[in-house]
């Protein structure tokens, strides 16, 4: 496990970090807990994503991970203040997740993701555009539009956009700044657990961002808050 400051530097530079096997001892408990939250059909033939929110109480193994010393170390270094878990979710993901960021906020948010199935480039692994979480790196505007319109503008399928694929196996954790452009392609049904963290909002802008971010986790699209 890299040191928290190294993970945080990876997050600052690339927008994401891959922590191999940091949760390997929790996989059994997470799998049992997931099965109680979301029942997958025996033939794994689901055609729609299924999501359950606010799962830390029902899934104590994930709660323990969210309070672990290494998660605390990463969050406290990244946010440079007290932090909190703002949302958590269990997902049975199906198919592709198109190129997107989870909004683009001045206030940073981190998402910790665990897959309970091995995922690779051709089975729905997360992929990222490194550095696209930072507004000053020039991704906003035309470059992002070209990525989203990859077929029309670049003549590429979504999985051919030149990005970094993060293969993952149960026990790995992927943490990313939710501004970063990401996608998943070629996936079948795959089980995912996640929780999102934010530094304690202080300014009015941070409080507004945090409320908007919280609501947008539940409602796709942009939620306006006056």
């Amino acid at each position: 496990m890299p040191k928290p400051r190294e993970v945080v530097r990876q997050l600052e530079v690339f927008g994401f970090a891959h922590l191999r096997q940091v949760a390997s001892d929790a996989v059994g408990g997470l799998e049992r807990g997931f099965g109680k939250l979301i029942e997958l059909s025996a033939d794994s033939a689901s055609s729609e994503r299924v999501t359950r929110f606010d799962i830390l109480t029902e899934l104590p193994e994930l709660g323990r991970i969210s309070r672990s010393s290494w998660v605390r170390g990463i969050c406290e270094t990244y946010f440079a203040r007290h932090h909190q878990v703002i949302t958590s979710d269990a997902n049975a993901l199906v198919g592709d997740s198109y190129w997107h960021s989870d909004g683009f906020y001045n206030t940073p948010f981190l998402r910790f993701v665990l897959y309970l199935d091995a995922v690779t480039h051709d089975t729905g692994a997360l992929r990222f555009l490194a550095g696209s979480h930072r507004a000053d790196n020039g991704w906003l505007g035309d470059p992002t539009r070209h990525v989203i319109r990859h077929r029309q503008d670049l003549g590429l399928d979504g999985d051919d956009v030149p990005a970094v694929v993060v293969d993952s196996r149960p026990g790995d954790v992927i943490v990313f700044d939710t501004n970063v452009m990401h996608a998943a392609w070629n996936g079948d049904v795959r089980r995912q657990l996640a929780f999102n963290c934010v530094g304690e909002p202080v300014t009015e802008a941070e409080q507004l961002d945090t409320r908007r971010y919280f609501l947008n986790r539940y409602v796709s699209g942009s939620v306006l808050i006056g």
Partner: protein
Amino acid sequence: MSLAPLSATAAEVTHFRTFGFVRLRGAHDDVAPAVTEAFEDVLGRSSPGRQAGAGVSRIAERSDVLRAVLLADHRCPRLARRLLGTDVVYAGGDGVRHDGAVEWHRDGDHRALRLLKIVQYLDPLRGRTGALRIIPGTHRRGGSWDTFTAELDDPLRRLGMEPIDVPAFTVESSPGDLVAFDPHSYHASLGDCYGRRQITTTYASVPESDEARRELSDYLLADRPALRESDDLPALT
């Protein structure tokens, strides 16, 4: 030698400008054997240097075949004009047989100068056998990437990761492919890649500012220290 013009589609131009590179698959399929033969001929006739491999600067000027394939106006210069969207000047290049890996770097730290490198690798290259690795989008100037040089110089100490684990896109290639990239992008070639052969030609946008002219002068004189130290150089116009 009669050769078709080299160019790029609108999608390839957008790819280059969005990510800092584009791979033109098979663009040199018809000339790959002749290029390889010319490369070996030039290196055989020369006394190549041995720093990180055997190399000959400006190799394209030392062979009739390479001059026709690479430097004729309808070949690499035309491709460079298309990708950069400007008139261009030839800025050199080399032929190298590498002894090993090339670590993460940018070619210079130019603020105004726009460069394009067109590379043909003469061997099939994959991720762990020396294929070009690029961090897409790092060709853009003035952003945070400019402040992360130390991290890319020493990823093990600064980021806790081996150079080969730095997240990047691997541009796998075959001998007939061309890879055109902005060398301001962070790039590397890692893994087991002894003997990897490459031919590079470099073009610069015709400079339109004093800063770009100064940077182009510095770039062209980089391997000529005796000239670089002179105070009597003519100014580039």
